């Protein structure tokens, strides 16, 4: 496989960025959008070529030059293309192309059109670096780079300071994780004297401090992949344009944490304690986010919490050592969640920027394609067979059941809730009558084909994507074998009665969720009340467990307080001490000056005393 083609995969998005960045303003919107889309599409083509090659080819490592050098090891500026990277390359560029296509239509009225595509291309570029970096430091370039682009895109409508706040919050929350990543890198580098994935895989051994490294990496993952306790930025990140939410905050960037842990599976396998923590955090996050999603009224917020919840399930799988299962769910989730987000974008587009579901409803009639694709994706995420979500989610539940019943119960509960809130979303948006203003109703329309095309493709993928890993004969598991050192899932594939029973239970759970939503929102035609009028558990959910407020109280406020305290009190104090070094002599001399008052008597008196002292010292002191 020629390395030029591989590098072209990375270079295309960068070229797109540079063209749009430097000359975007002089290009027409059509040209600008086309260039950006083509850049990713070209990347997709080369990715496909590589994907075809890697089916039975060897991974390729490309080293461009030595990047950093320390006295006992060096870090290469290099790329590593293997099976895992191939999977991610495929769906990043694939979904990326679709979303770019979608955006050309969605963003067509925006004044900063070319800037949007600059950032979007830049994001894809960094994401590709993240998945193809040959060592941890290279991965970190992508890791922070996607954070940068996420910052730029969330705050894309920069005139609104709320959006800017959301962007800032996302970046800072991610930075907390990034510090974890750095600490992980340091410990790894110190222990194994290399950061290269291939060398790490061969040389890694269990060291006492390895747990710190893996824990630090996990903290990094909780930042990027929005897990407890750092997930709060993701719902806020919905301030960005909807395609951004679809691409970055659903399909690709947030899966970086899963990618990284899968990449480092050999390290995590050595530290089972950390794996337990990952599993627990994943399960808890999935349940917590699902409960919050129950009562959200903003269509994108529901999807955001749903993303957090699904990511939680993936981390559960990772924590149980079932890396392939997590990867499987990443892929299927990318399909249906991207579809859902783009569908919601289509809806928002139709109703003129309204995002509150209480002001929607009855859109079924006006937007048939959107509704159909949305419906398929909802079925997929809820886990109805034989759609993709069923297979991937079920495998996670199966794995959980084999390890720990409690985790299985928690995860199952989260799945049932998922079915409920997704159908709630579907019914509130598309069923019954339209609840918005007259003007909006008049305006309702199906989106143009540039937007519906990606929806259809993604819906199809969401429907059939599960085929890549059917229980029993999993293509994915075979494909990922070289990447994953020891897999925990392989022996689960002999399907027995228990497994079928569990699958049945999961389907029944999803059905329960569906039925409850159906009765509540279609039969009884309920509409959620204002957040201020809810009580009890609902209030807790609606306020997101007061997590933002708690962070405000225990982290942000103390920081601000100490900042002011240091600025006003401590700095003043230190300055006072410093200046007193100057003041003391000057004050002393000022006081001393007073003794020189011209009174000869005083001088003489002092002289007499001095003479007496001297005499005493000289003659009488011994």
């Amino acid at each position, binding site marked *: 496989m020629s390395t030029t083609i591989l590098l072209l995969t990375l270079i295309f998005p960068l070229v797109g960025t540079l063209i749009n960045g430097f000359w975007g303003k002089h290009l027409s919107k059509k040209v600008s959008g086309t260039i950006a889309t083509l850049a990713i599409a070209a990347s997709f083509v080369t990715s496909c070529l590589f994907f075809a090659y890697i089916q039975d080819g060897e991974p390729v490592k490309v080293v461009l030059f030595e990047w950093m050098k320390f006295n006992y090891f060096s870090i290469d500026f290099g790329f590593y293309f293997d099976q895992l990277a191939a999977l991610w390359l495929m769906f990043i560029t694939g979904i990326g192309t679709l979303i770019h296509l979608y955006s050309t239509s969605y963003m067509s009225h925006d004044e900063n059109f070319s800037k949007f595509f600059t950032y979007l291309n830049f994001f894809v570029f960094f994401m590709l670096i993240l998945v193809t970096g040959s060592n941890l430091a290279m991965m970190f370039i992508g890791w922070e780079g996607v954070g940068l682009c996420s910052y730029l895109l969330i705050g894309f409508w920069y005139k609104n300071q709320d959006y800017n706040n959301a962007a800032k919050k996302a970046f800072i929350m991610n930075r907390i994780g990034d510090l974890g990543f750095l600490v992980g890198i340091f410990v790894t580098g110190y222990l194994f004297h290399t950061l290269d994935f291939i060398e790490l895989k061969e040389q890694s051994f269990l060291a006492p401090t390895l747990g710190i490294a893996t824990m630090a990496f996990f903290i990094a993952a909780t930042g990027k992949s929005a897990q407890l306790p750092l997930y709060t930025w993701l719902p806020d990140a919905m301030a960005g344009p909807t395609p951004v939410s679809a691409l970055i905050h659903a399909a690709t960037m947030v899966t970086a944490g899963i990618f990284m842990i899968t990449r480092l599976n050999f390290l995590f396998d050595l530290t089972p304690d950390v794996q337990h923590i990952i599993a627990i955090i994943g399960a808890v996050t999935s349940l917590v986010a699902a409960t919050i999603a129950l009562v959200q009224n903003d269509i994108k917020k529901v999807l955001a919490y749903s993303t957090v919840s699904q990511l939680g399930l993936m981390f559960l799988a990772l924590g149980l050592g079932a890396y392939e299962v997590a990867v499987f769910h990443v892929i299927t989730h990318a399909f249906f969640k991207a579809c859902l987000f783009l569908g919601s974008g289509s809806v928002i587009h139709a109703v003129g920027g309204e995002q509150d579901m209480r002001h929607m409803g009855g859109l079924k009639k006006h937007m048939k394609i959107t509704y159909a694709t949305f419906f398929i994706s909802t079925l997929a995420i809820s886990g109805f067979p034989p759609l993709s979500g069923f297979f991937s989610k079920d495998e996670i539940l199966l794995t959980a059941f084999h390890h720990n019943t409690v985790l299985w119960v928690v995860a199952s509960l989260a799945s049932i809730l998922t079915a409920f809130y997704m159908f709630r979303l579907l019914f509130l948006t598309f069923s019954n009558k339209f609840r918005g203003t007259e003007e909006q109703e008049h305006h309702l329309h199906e989106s143009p084909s540039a937007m519906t095309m990606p929806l259809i493709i993604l819906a199809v993928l969401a429907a059939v994507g599960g085929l890549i890993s059917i229980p029993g004969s999993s293509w994915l598991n075979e494909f990922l074998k070289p990447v994953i050192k020891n897999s925990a899932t392989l022996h689960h594939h002999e399907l027995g009665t228990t497994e079928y029973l569990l699958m049945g239970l999961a389907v029944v759970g999803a059905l329960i969720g569906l039925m409850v939503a159906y009765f509540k929102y279609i039969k009884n035609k309920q509409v959620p009340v204002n957040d201020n009028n809810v009580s009890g558990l609902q209030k807790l959910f609606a306020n997101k467990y007061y997590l933002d407020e708690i962070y405000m109280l225990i982290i942000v406020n103390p920081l601000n307080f100490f900042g002011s305290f240091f600025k006003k009190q401590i700095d003043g104090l230190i300055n006072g001490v410093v200046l007193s070094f100057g003041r003391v002599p000057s004050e002393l001399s000022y006081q001393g000056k007073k003794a020189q008052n011209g009174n000869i*008597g005083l001088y*003489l008196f002092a002289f*007499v005393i001095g003479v007496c002292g001297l*005499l*005493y010292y*000289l*003659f*009488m002191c011994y």
Partner: protein
Amino acid sequence: MIEILFYILSAVTLGSAFLTILSKNPIHSAIWLVICFFSIAGHYALLNSQFLAMVHIIVYSGAIMILMLFTIMLMNLNISDEIAKPIVTKIIATVCFCLIGFFLVSSLAQTAPALETYTQTGVDFQTIQVLGKVLLNEFVLPFEMAAILLLMAMIGAVLISKKEKKTA
């Protein structure tokens, strides 16, 4: 005999010095000071340094004291002009006097008495001839300097006490 002379002279010296300070009238002070200087000249004579005794009388009792008397009279000072110092100052002055006196005397008392071990060679060292030779050989430069100093003092005194013109 000499001892008695010494004690009498000492008594006169100290007494007249005290009275110089204690007299309210500056003229009286000046007169007591003259007596004091005479008695010191007597001490010099007792110590067999005739030259100094004579110079002392000429310079101090003659020149300096006359100068002082002239000044006092020129200023027409009398008793009422001087406001007595506050009593605290006087006490402090007395304390100082006692302190320094005590410390000087007691530090001297620490040293060994010298009379028993003292011997003399009898060399002539203080007749006018000897002094004149020393003064004009070894100390000729300081001698000339002293002359210049006196000249400068004279010019200075004239310059300072000259009446300023009222132009400024």
